[in-house]
């Protein structure tokens, strides 16, 4: 990737964010939302309604969508590199299922948002650890992914169990809707708890982006390039798990993005981590903001985001795969 694209990649999410703040039931133009956003700095007298809609309602969930999109895309790219497997996603290690179980359990016991996040994080990371323990010492790619599948199905069964015992009047729908994913619960308070972990994980992956190319090589090659393969792989897995668990705890399960965005990034800038990671972070944020804006504006009621990402993401992915096959 050329250096000159960097400003565009940095600006793109911000421009998307400004456009998205203007879209919704209460429609605000691009110029108006810009003025409202900078009202404090410029002393612009914004309409009270517009100010409240932009800053209190739309901004938190746009911020959440941007960070979740960027984080899950970076995590997906990291997993794909670590396992040299284009199909590896944040779900591969069972992290997403583990975190889902943790959050569902917290909802069942009626704990507050913070409690839900912590429980999701604990179970997400435990799932990751469990997968690594099952995979054992050899840590070969296939045993890690098979371990992840086993752990994932165990936690999915546990989620089903939680749903089964949940009160069908209020708990069951809450858990079910939450599992489908939504940015609607975003507030500045919840952002303050969850975002630092997403930022931390994404920053680690970004800083290690060049190492991702080495870790994707065969074990002997990577080791003979003088890299501590076990350590770097563990750092990537922990960072990506941290992101996944935080995202799941804040907005439920959002599928497809960890697969779709890194693939698009590879098609744009080649498969080197040096370009895949920055592209994934930027495009992931943009993609998720657009998805969330669609989710809240397409119909009067909100559409769960995982339904949208799958309905839009899957056909897009198939189209991309077909195009790539034609070219080779």
């Amino acid at each position, binding site marked *: 990737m050329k250096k000159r694209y960097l400003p565009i990649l940095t600006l793109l999410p911000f421009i998307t964010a400004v456009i998205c703040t203007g879209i919704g039931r209460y429609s605000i133009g691009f110029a108006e939302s810009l003025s409202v956003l900078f009202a404090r700095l410029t002393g612009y007298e914004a309409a009270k309604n517009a100010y409240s809609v932009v800053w209190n309602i739309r901004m938190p969930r746009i911020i959440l969508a941007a960070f979740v999109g960027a984080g899950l895309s970076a995590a997906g790219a990291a997993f794909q590199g670590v396992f040299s497997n284009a199909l590896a996603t944040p779900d591969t290690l069972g992290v997403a299922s583990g975190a889902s179980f943790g959050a569902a359990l917290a909802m069942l016991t009626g704990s507050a948002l913070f409690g839900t996040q912590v429980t999701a994080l604990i179970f997400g990371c435990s799932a990751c650890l469990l997968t690594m323990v099952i995979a054992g010492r050899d840590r070969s790619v296939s045993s890690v992914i098979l371990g992840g599948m086993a752990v994932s199905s165990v936690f999915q069964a546990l989620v089903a169990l939680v749903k089964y015992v949940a009160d069908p009047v209020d708990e069951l729908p809450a858990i079910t809707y939450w599992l489908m994913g939504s940015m609607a619960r975003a507030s500045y308070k919840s952002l303050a708890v969850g975002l630092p972990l997403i930022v931390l994980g994404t920053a680690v992956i970004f800083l290690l982006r060049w190492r991702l*190319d080495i870790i994707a*090589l*065969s074990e*002997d090659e990577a*080791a*003979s*390039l003088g890299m501590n393969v076990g350590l770097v792989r563990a750092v990537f897995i922990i960072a990506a798990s941290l992101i996944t668990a935080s995202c799941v705890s804040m907005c439920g399960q959002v599928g497809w993005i960890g697969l779709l965005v890194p693939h698009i990034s590879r098609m744009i800038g080649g498969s080197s981590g040096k370009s895949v990671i920055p592209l994934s972070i930027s495009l992931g944020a943009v993609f998720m903001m657009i998805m969330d804006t669609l989710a809240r504006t397409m119909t009067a009621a909100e559409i769960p985001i995982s339904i949208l990402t799958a309905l839009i993401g899957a056909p897009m992915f198939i189209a991309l795969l077909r195009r790539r096959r034609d070219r080779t």
Partner: protein
Amino acid sequence: MRFEIEKGSFAYGERGIFKEISFSLEGGEILAVLGPNGCGKTTLLRCITGLLKLADGKVLLDGQSMTGDKTQWQKMAYVPQLHTLPPSYSVREMVTLGRSAHIGLFGTPSAHDREIVQRAVDEMGIDSLSDKRCDRLSGGELQTVMIARALAAEPSVLILDEPESGLDFRNQELMLSIIRRLSEKGMIVIFNTHFPQNALATAHKALLMSRDEAPVYGAVREVITADNIRHSFGVDVLITDIEHNGRIYSTVTAVK
């Protein structure tokens, strides 16, 4: 520069692979390792590089034990055999990965690194390939890229696992000439090969392994003899020297 292995032994559990192998190489020397399939040639190379731990014995570079960390890989490079298609990085990106041992964990290649990469690319004559994707290269091209990547680490010991295997006649000769050229620059080169003739044409020293017996080590012409080959491979051969333009070429032909 001196590279040696002292009484190196290795076993997978109860099954001994090799026992008490010793050799010593000075700067500019080439060692060819030969032996039948499954006698442990690749295992030996992996032990030399520290990717596998010797059960017994020592590997010394300039009298110092190998550290197994980054500092070791600033002096030594290993080109394993490739069994899978490489990732789709460009040739230049792939060669740049060779700088890894010289770059900090969170670092990315600097202008200085890119300069050294360019030198390795020029050295191997693959500048015209540098924007091509590695998964679209021919076998011979890919092998040159792998060696360029190894050279980017600026090693003084280069270890190659069957560098000329699976290549056509011309590319085999190209690999051997590359090995000779690097040794002329003072590099120690160790390579595995299935072809006694290639060892005779290239190496100064040879290590001939057998499945159940002690290996034979020494000057290449003393090791690659009809007797030793019959012993190790169970094949009767005729080794003949041909003179052409003032140079001696040795051929190894299987006879009945």
